[in-house]
């Protein structure tokens, strides 16, 4: 049993210090360039925060940051990326109470239900962390071609991925879309749940303190419907997850816009975030590279 300190209850009547909720872009916490914010409430409608409302220009800046980070992140060793993802889990564990309170508030859950969601989220980071250095062995191959050539195929990150995070599930769903994208070396621009962005902002703070290089994950609070089209049509975005788009017509329009540069598109679908994720989100943002070389003396 690991020893944990027992904290004394906090002094009654102390005026707490509140946080300003900002975006997380390129490793920094800017306000929206638009200067906009919007009111975030808990599930019962009580004021929680004024979140920054990201604009298309914030999305543009986030893509630039993500592209800048891509070269370094994608060429780190898989072992190193695995360690960084595991570090995210470690740091989240330290903020367990905070996440639980925020998830409970955002989703209107009991604290014990929220705790189990935070547990599952942390465990999911651990699960994906372990994939970093196994993926190539599972989805790569050595190809027995009919000739004197050594031929192998290996997975590589697709590039900059836009993730329109689920609207309902504020932490487990969010984790489940981010982790599989970045573990293989992609960098991400995430648009959070519009109504439940607070756990995502805290996750940004975790990223900032978990050896995740700036720009690898960029978190924009605001409306996926507003920012989504700019990301879908952005020519320097290589893939997009439409998970957070609930209106089928909107999803169709975004998919059509994404066709402009042949983005890899993940369509919205029914999701059970507690179920074992399988490989499909991992492989969604992978390219297969095949290399040939003659065998001779």
């Amino acid at each position, binding site marked *: 049993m690991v020893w944990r300190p027992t904290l004394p209850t906090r002094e009654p009547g102390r005026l707490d210090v509140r946080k300003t909720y900002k975006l997380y872009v390129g490793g920094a916490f800017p306000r929206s360039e638009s200067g906009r914010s919007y009111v975030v409430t808990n599930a019962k409608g009580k004021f929680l925060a004024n979140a920054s409302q990201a604009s298309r220009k914030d999305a543009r800046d986030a893509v630039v940051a993500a592209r800048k980070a891509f070269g370094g992140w994608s060429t780190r060793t898989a072992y190193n990326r695995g360690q960084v993802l595991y570090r995210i889990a470690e740091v989240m564990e330290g903020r367990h109470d905070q996440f639980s309170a925020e998830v409970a508030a955002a989703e209107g859950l009991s604290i014990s239900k929220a705790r189990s969601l935070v547990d599952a989220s942390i465990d999911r980071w651990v699960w994906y962390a372990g994939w970093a250095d196994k993926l190539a062995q599972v989805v790569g191959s050595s190809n027995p071609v009919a000739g004197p050539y050594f031929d192998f195929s290996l997975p590589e990150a697709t590039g900059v991925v836009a993730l329109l995070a689920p609207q309902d599930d504020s932490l487990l769903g969010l984790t489940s879309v981010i982790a599989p994208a970045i573990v293989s070396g992609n960098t991400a621009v995430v648009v959070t749940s519009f109504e439940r962005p607070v756990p995502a902002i805290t996750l940004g703070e975790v990223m900032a303190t978990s050896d995740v290089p700036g720009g690898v994950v960029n978190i924009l609070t605001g409306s996926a419907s507003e920012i989504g089209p700019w990301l879908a049509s952005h020519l320097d975005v290589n893939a997009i997850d439409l998970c957070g788009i609930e209106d089928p017509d909107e999803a169709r*329009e975004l998919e059509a816009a994404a066709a402009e540069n042949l983005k890899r598109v993940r369509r919205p679908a029914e999701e059970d975030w507690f179920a074992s994720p399988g490989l499909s989100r991992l492989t969604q943002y992978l390219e297969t590279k095949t290399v040939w*070389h003659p065998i001779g003396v």
Partner: protein
Amino acid sequence: MSRFEYAPAPESRAIVDIKSSYGLFINGAFVEATDGKPFKTVSPASEEVLAEVSEAGPADVDKAVKAARKAHEKVWGPMPGRDRAKYLFRIARLIQERARELAVLESLDNGKPIRESRDVDVPLVAAHFFYYAGWADKLEYAGAGPDPQPWGVAGQVIPWNFPLLMLAWKIAPALAAGNTVVLKPAETTPLTALAFAEICQQADLPPGVVNIITGAGRTGENLVTHEGVDKVAFTGSTAVGRAIAKAVAGTDKKVTLELGGKAANIVFEDAPIDQTIEGIVNGIFFNQGHVCCAGSRLLVQESVYDEVLARLKRRMGTLRIGDPLDKNTDIGAINSPEQLARIRELSQVGEDEGAERWSPECELPSQGYWFPPTVFTGVSQAHRIAREEIFGPVLSVLTFRTPAEAVEKANNTPFGLSAGVWTEKGSRILWMANQLRAGVVWANTFNRFDPASPFGGYKESGYGREGGRHGLEAYLAH
């Protein structure tokens, strides 16, 4: 005779029996088109009309998709994988048995040299069916879960550059996985696909499992947007691929796209020079440069630029251009007048932009569509001929100084299908292979293909892979 002039060595045409007109192959039989008009397919080397072919209209497409649906539900889906495998093995054998005939037919209809259709295309077609035949009863090992299922009906549209090979790349994995198919060959090269329909008959393949419908872009559009099609597979231009991706947006259709490219073929100063020259030639002049993964941008290290260019030009002087059926022909005819116009236009643009154009002396036949092997030097990244896919025997030459610059230039394109690297230094090969954003990297070789080897692009070169286990995944629900 004072010189060693090779006398004509034509492969006999007698081996092929081209009918004057062809219907559509739907539900196991050739049928008349109900609402389309017939069109002609010509030999690009002579402009001779080879046959009249039916254009499939919306009603024909619907009929073909329904036949495929029925075959999927009643026969092919429920059939044990073992038996699907045996049908595919049968088809592979039939292709081998009729290999020479298919090669001649391909060269006639497409214009490619018989040496290539005989030694590359058709053997690879048979190999593809053999490879995927073996997968049909082993799908649970394909990496798509313990009980992978086919999508259902696959609508497939293929290009004219490797007509029968692209058919094999599409049909073999689809059938192995348990899908049924409706395939549309390119309008300028339908004949080997129609011969393949006969092979399906000879193999006693159940009716409706493979349907071949001929026609142009509109037929293809009707096919991929047909609501009964579960899976769309397309090989062709990025423009059409983009249109398909838009057309299927918001549907449940699964899509794989194999599109254009502008591959860099990168030559370092320590390259094995003679094999490198062969690789450059093979990279851009194979199949008249009608190859999506063609090494159309040659990046040469400045320290060996003069030598590489001199050797390349000397080698280009030995290329033999002419009758595709002549066994000694290296470069055949351009597939269509439209393609020839495109090559001419972009070559003119290259000249206008200030690049220097060079072709060896060669006499082009007076009939048919021809373009000499051409190299442009003094090309920079900003030139259109360095950025746009020409899809012809036209090579743009650029230079670089360091490996990092080579990578930067190679990746500076919206495409990402293939790349070549020539150096004797092993660690540099692997470094380059890591850095290049392309789906296939050929090191000290170029334009090699194998059914076991996954092929496909990054970025605007499309998505999904064909070949190998990866190619099977595209046809399995997971």
